[in-house]
């Protein structure tokens, strides 16, 4: 059995690729505007080499009327500025796909393309240099051909281009228009007449939407939830959070600082957090490894901090620009000693916004570490979503004491043992609230104490804090048919492919019920219940060890029902690919 690939022009998958500096993004951006005007939603990804500049770069873009959270099965259109672009994009091209190829250096290498593909070979660069004296104008030329394929009117294409280059010098803008017209002329010669190309774009009512990445959404959520101190050390794929907050935090009285390494980053954040400032740091797996001592210290010393892990392919330096979900074990179990921690797992940018805000509040309430676990695709891919509901964010201050509160007390003990485990907290600068904060085991005053009874009392007190917030931990996102025999569980980048695969499977007669846990640790009862409620549960994850499936099994989910669906090649699932894997397994199960 195979799964039908859905290909309509209500859903268009495009790759624009060339050497870094070719301006691949320009064509993608122009096309994005055309699609946006028709009410398409966008899912955009980059496929870049891990190097400073140049190297091969591809802009991947999916425009769809339906909201989608991943690239589709196949590329409908490949705009290739060199042979390598064909070599890389060709295998993804649909049987009846279109290729617009810059033939300045010779014909397209057909061996990488499906037989049914339609190829337009145009010496873009040569024409651009000959007639307009600049290689970069080849992008506008290419856009002219693309707009004819999609039956976009010439006037509209010119309008989009004019607006796009409105900020440039007049001569440059005019040259781009001439390049566009040269593209039209070429199209005319090759039978692509104005307004009647082989494809036409659907349209849908438009609304006020945003295009945002998960990293940006995390930064916005942190800010809106009162975050005012951020520190980070540059690392792919987390750096956008640092650069965004460096630009934006100062206007809100906040500070974002680039540390000398991840050890400094987590400890600077610890220092800031101790002053009562809502703080966060973000990194990827290698940085999280270096921060482990700091995170266990947060748990012991009872300091609130949000730590973001934008996972990439590991171990060690691994594949820095590729997604993976192989830090789950480290976040859930890493660090020395026993300490309370929470791990939240967002998927869409909207989810990133809300869970960043939730993480900030939870950290304050438990006075301890809260991880946000993302992956490269969630972090860096940009998605069209509805504007975030800013009004939904409320601040949970946690148990804080000001000078008046302290004055009411007969005595103030920083690590007072309480029923819920949380000790009221006076931050430095509070008159009368002087206290000692330490990662040593201590008595209520904060003095080092290693007695057996005190140790148990203090450790139990700290661990109790999770119970205080358990009922408020973010619940899972669900989709599909709740009555289905088969279930599917996955986090982060898997969600888009899982939801779409569920639709495909339903069409093929296989019902699936889906669960995206948003709290990864502690594992919530709902996750165990979900496994119990289904005969077979496919746990979809990007790692080789099955870290998520083992985590779920380790807390009591019936392991005989769990099935691993693993991928660790650095490439996200395409929906048809995932549906195929499930169908195969279901075939074996029945």
């Amino acid at each position, binding site marked *: 059995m195979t799964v039908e690939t859905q290909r309509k022009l209500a859903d268009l998958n495009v790759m624009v690729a060339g050497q870094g500096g070719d301006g691949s993004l320009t064509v993608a951006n122009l096309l994005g*505007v055309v699609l*946006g005007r028709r009410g398409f939603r*966008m899912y955009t990804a980059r496929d870049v080499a891990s190097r400073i500049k140049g190297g091969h770069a591809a802009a991947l873009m999916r425009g769809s009327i339906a909201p989608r959270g991943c690239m589709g099965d196949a590329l409908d259109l490949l705009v290739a500025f060199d042979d390598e672009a064909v070599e890389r994009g060709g295998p993804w091209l649909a049987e009846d796909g279109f290729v617009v190829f810059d033939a300045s250096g010779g014909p397209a290498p057909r061996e990488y393309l499906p037989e049914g593909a339609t190829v337009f070979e145009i010496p873009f660069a040569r024409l651009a240099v000959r007639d307009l004296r600049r290689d970069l104008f080849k992008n506008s030329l290419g856009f002219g051909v693309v707009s004819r394929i999609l039956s976009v009117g010439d006037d509209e294409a010119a309008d*989009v281009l004019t607006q*796009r280059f409105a900020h440039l010098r007049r001569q440059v803008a005019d040259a781009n228009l001439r390049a566009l017209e040269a593209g039209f002329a070429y199209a005319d010669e090759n039978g692509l007449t104005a307004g009647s190309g082989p494809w036409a774009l659907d349209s849908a009512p438009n609304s*006020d*939407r*945003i*295009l945002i990445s998960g990293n*940006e959404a995390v930064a916005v959520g942190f800010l*809106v939830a*009162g975050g*005012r*101190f951020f*520190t980070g050390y540059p690392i792919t794929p987390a750096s956008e959070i640092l650069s965004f907050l460096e630009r*934006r935090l*100062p*206007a809100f*009285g*906040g*500070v974002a600082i680039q*540390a*000398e390494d991840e050890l*400094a*980053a987590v*400890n*600077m*954040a610890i*220092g*800031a*957090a*101790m002053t*009562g*400032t809502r703080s966060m740091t973000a990194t990827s797996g290698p940085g999280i490894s270096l921060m482990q001592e700091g995170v266990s*210290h947060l748990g012991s010393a009872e300091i609130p901090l949000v730590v973001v892990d934008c996972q990439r392919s590991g171990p060690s330096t691994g594949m820095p620009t590729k997604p993976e979900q192989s830090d789950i074990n480290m976040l859930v179990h890493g660090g020395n000693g026993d300490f309370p921690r929470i791990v939240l797992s967002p998927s869409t940018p909207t989810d990133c916004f809300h869970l960043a805000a939730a993480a900030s509040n939870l950290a304050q309430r438990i006075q301890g570490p809260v991880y946000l676990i993302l992956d490269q695709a969630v972090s860096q891919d940009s998605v*069209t979503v509805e*504007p975030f509901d*800013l009004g939904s964010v409320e*601040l949970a201050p946690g148990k804080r004491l000001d000078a008046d509160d302290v*004055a009411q*007390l*007969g*005595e*103030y*003990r*920083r690590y007072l043992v309480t029923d819920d485990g949380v000790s009221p907290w006076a931050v*430095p*600068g509070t*008159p009368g*609230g*002087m*206290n*000692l*904060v*330490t*990662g040593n085991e201590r008595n209520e*005053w*904060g*003095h*080092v104490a290693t007695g057996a009874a005190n140790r148990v009392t203090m450790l139990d007190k700290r661990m109790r804090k999770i119970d205080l917030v358990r009922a408020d931990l973010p619940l899972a996102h669900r989709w599909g048919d709740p009555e289905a025999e088969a279930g599917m569980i996955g986090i982060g980048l898997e969600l888009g492919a899982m939801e779409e695969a569920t639709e495909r499977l339903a069409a093929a007669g296989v019902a699936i019920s889906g669960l995206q846990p948003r709290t990864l640790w502690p594992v919530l009862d709902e996750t165990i219940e979900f496994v119990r409620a289904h005969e077979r549960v496919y746990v979809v994850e990007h790692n080789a060890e099955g870290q998520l499936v083992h985590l779920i099994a380790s807390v009591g989910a019936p392991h005989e029902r769990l099935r691993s669906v693993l991928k660790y090649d650095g490439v996200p699932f395409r929906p048809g690919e995932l549906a195929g894997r499930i169908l195969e397994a279901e075939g074996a199960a029945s």
Partner: protein
Amino acid sequence: MTATYPPATPIWCAGCGHFGVQAVMLAAMRDLGIPAHEVMVLAGIGCSGTIQNNLGTYGYHALHGRVLPTATGVHLANPDLTVIATGGDGDGYAIGMGHLVHTFRRNPSFTYVIMNNGVYGLTKGQNSPTYQSEGAALDFDAVSLGLSISSTTFVARGFARWTDQLHRLTVAALEHARAGRGFAFLEVLSPCVTYNDTYPVWEATLDDLDARESYDPSSRAGAFSAVSELADEGRMAVGLIYRNGARANGELARPAAEDVRPDRHAAAYADLMATFRVRSGD
């Protein structure tokens, strides 16, 4: 008056140099009239890393080697606090060495009192990077390191036994940082009587720059020259070695004092959101 933690009794051996450091720190805070609740003392790991328990201020026990980034975070989040980082040579010159360079470079306005005794006392006497089998001058000299970084603004060295000078240096360091002039680095030669009793050798070979009438601590070249010449003779400089009054931080943000209620910033947040809008018109 609300009772808070009782200051601890020092854990140090009789004769330890750290007693002198603690005495002058308390005296300096008293001289400058700084209320205990406005002071945060951060300490590294080691014998010196217990000093914060004995003072009655806000205190924090950092991870080993990380006292400087932590203090930087405290200072940047709340520059109204008087932040004093403390620690030993194992903490500051071995595991935490990298942070020292960057703290000189960033020049945040807090004080660092590092108690140098050449050994790891708490773990029973292993050598530290400043252990010298003979002679006084250190192979690794943090004073020269500080002078070599162009953003450095304050470098001093005291000797735990010379408490009058150490008192003056501590006051000067606190004043420098509290005035927003930058990072005040004060190394205290603070002998470990149990594992590395350097009182006699230091007492015999230290050279007090404060006592030289012609010495100008505002001259970096002069400071380098004095320190280097003494080192060539197997001696070490103490005193106010370098102070550059010209640099001062500008107005600093005060994140800890910000009103962060979302309704307070609703319009600005909405504006930020709008920068991500997909404009249907273009």
